[in-house]
């Protein structure tokens, strides 16, 4: 095991308020780290800052290192070499995360086109193989299909295929299976964990579904109001939560109300 991702004292500031304070963690190859917390705790901002896709006007302090590459000071040009190649990302809304006007085969192939020198034909075969791997058999889903012709689960698989195409070292999955039914969810997670085992891919999983987290994560990081309140191995956090917030979170989850926020939704006053 080698340590892949080092995040040290990461703070993110939106144009009018701080969002993340001093978040630090490490993720090793082949490991699954789950980041959990209620909505608005800064989980998604964290994911975006790790991919360098924060909206303009956001300020980042601290260090993010992917192996030897310091990401926080990376130029846009160098970022494009990292994203999609060393770092894959799957977003939460399968319904809107795919480009409605392009065929799914093309969209998956884009990752190859952007990062490899494969020929058209090779990309075609690679795409097909990849689709089979994520469970999109040729019989069910044509490469020439458009996103709107697919079900939510199928779309999520397409997104996963796009993220996995170049065998990234790190996969960031932002609530990527929340919208799916339990069976598909399990199948998708199995796919991801197999990659971890076979290729040593690390996964940063963002989820508020504690059941899911418990089942698949090696480590857990609990966030509240933009700060890390507790982190440790899944077992230690779930079995012996130290922070009251974690305890409350777990209690709610046990009562099957994990999806209900603990506090009323904060009024979002960011500039629109």
């Amino acid at each position, binding site marked *: 095991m080698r340590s892949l991702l080092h995040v040290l004292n990461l703070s993110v500031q939106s144009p009018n308020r701080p969002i993340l304070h001093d978040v630090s963690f490490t993720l090793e190859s082949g490991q699954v780290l789950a980041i959990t917390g209620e909505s608005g705790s800064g989980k998604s901002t964290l994911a975006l800052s790790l991919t360098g896709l924060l909206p303009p006007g956001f300020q980042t302090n601290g260090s993010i290192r992917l192996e030897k590459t310091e990401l926080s000071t990376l130029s846009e040009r160098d970022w*494009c070499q990292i994203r*999609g190649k060393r770092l894959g990302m799957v*977003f939460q809304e399968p319904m809107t995360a795919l*480009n409605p006007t392009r065929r799914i085969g093309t969209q998956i192939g884009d990752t190859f086109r952007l990062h490899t020198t494969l020929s058209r034909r090779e990309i075609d075969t690679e795409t097909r193989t990849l689709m089979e791997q994520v469970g999109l058999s040729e019989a069910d889903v044509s490469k020439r299909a458009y996103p709107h012709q697919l079900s939510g689960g199928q779309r999520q698989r397409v997104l996963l295929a796009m*993220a996995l195409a170049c065998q990234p070292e790190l996969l960031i999955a932002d609530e990527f299976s929340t919208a799916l039914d339990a069976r598909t969810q399990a199948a998708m997670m199995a796919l991801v964990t197999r990659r971890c085992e076979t290729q040593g891919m690390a996964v940063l999983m963002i989820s508020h579904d504690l059941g899911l987290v418990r089942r698949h994560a090696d480590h857990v990081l609990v966030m509240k109001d933009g700060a890390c309140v507790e982190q440790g191995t899944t077992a230690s956090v779930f079995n012996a939560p130290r922070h009251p917030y974690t305890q409350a979170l777990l209690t709610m989850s046990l009562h099957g109300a994990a999806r209900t926020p603990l506090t009323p939704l904060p009024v979002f006053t960011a500039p629109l």
Partner: protein
Amino acid sequence: MTGMAVFRIPLERLLLLVVASLVIFAAMNLLPGDPAAVMLGLDASPESLAALHQKLGLESSPPARYLHWISAFIRGDLGRSYIYDVPVRSLIGERLQSSLPLILLAMLLSLGTGITLGVMAAAKRGTLLDTSLMGFLQLFKSIPDFLLAMMMTFLFSLTLHWLPSSGFPGWHDGILPALRALTLPAIALAIPQAAITARFMRSSLIETLSQDFICTARAQGYSRRGVLWHIAVPNALIPVLTLTGIQLPVLVTGTIIVESVFSLPGCGKLLLEAVNQRDIPVVQNLVMLIVASVIVLNIVMTILIRWFDPRLETDLS
């Protein structure tokens, strides 16, 4: 299913054509003034008037006249001009030599600059460039085409003598003089359209850029530029194409006005002349032709939009 949808739109539009032809026929037959009297001049005797009425088929009943007209129109027979006494077809054909290139040029210009400016503004959203560009476009949107045409003639032909102020030499003297003659009119025609397109493109692009799939593409490794041009722009273009379809009749209107200002012997001027001279065969057939081509172009636009936006195909079937 898809096949059905492809056919249904043209069929509906065909019905539209029939209604349009009825409207045109009714309007033309409301016009006061006797075309035969106009044709024969002031001293026409009642006998020769009656003879000409007979010849022009003005004696028969309106429904018969309508059927006669529309069947001839479908066969491509556009009748003879009362005023010039030549086939309307050749008259229109002659005028198309300047009108068609003018509209085409103006459309290319307006789409090209409109889209480019829209993308520029959207990409630099909130900057001084964006706000000043939007201000300028708002201004150009607010200038009537004839005033723009007048101002441009004044500046570029009358004062700077760069381009001819009016007229059209035809294509037989070479492409360059013809293009020179069409440049100012095309620009005058394109500017308000480009302003509308640019503003629309900007908002459409801003809307598209806020979509989730933009983030997906960026995460895939698309650069900012790449995602803009490869992902966002094609998606943002769909509503712009729809707008272009809706703006087509406005462009035709503009053509009539601009041809007037620049003295271009085009269809628009032919139409105004014909209306003034009560040259009913010309007006009737030309209007019908314009309406028909607008409808056909709309169908083409619909197909184009479908090609860009695969979602519509299933929506329709």
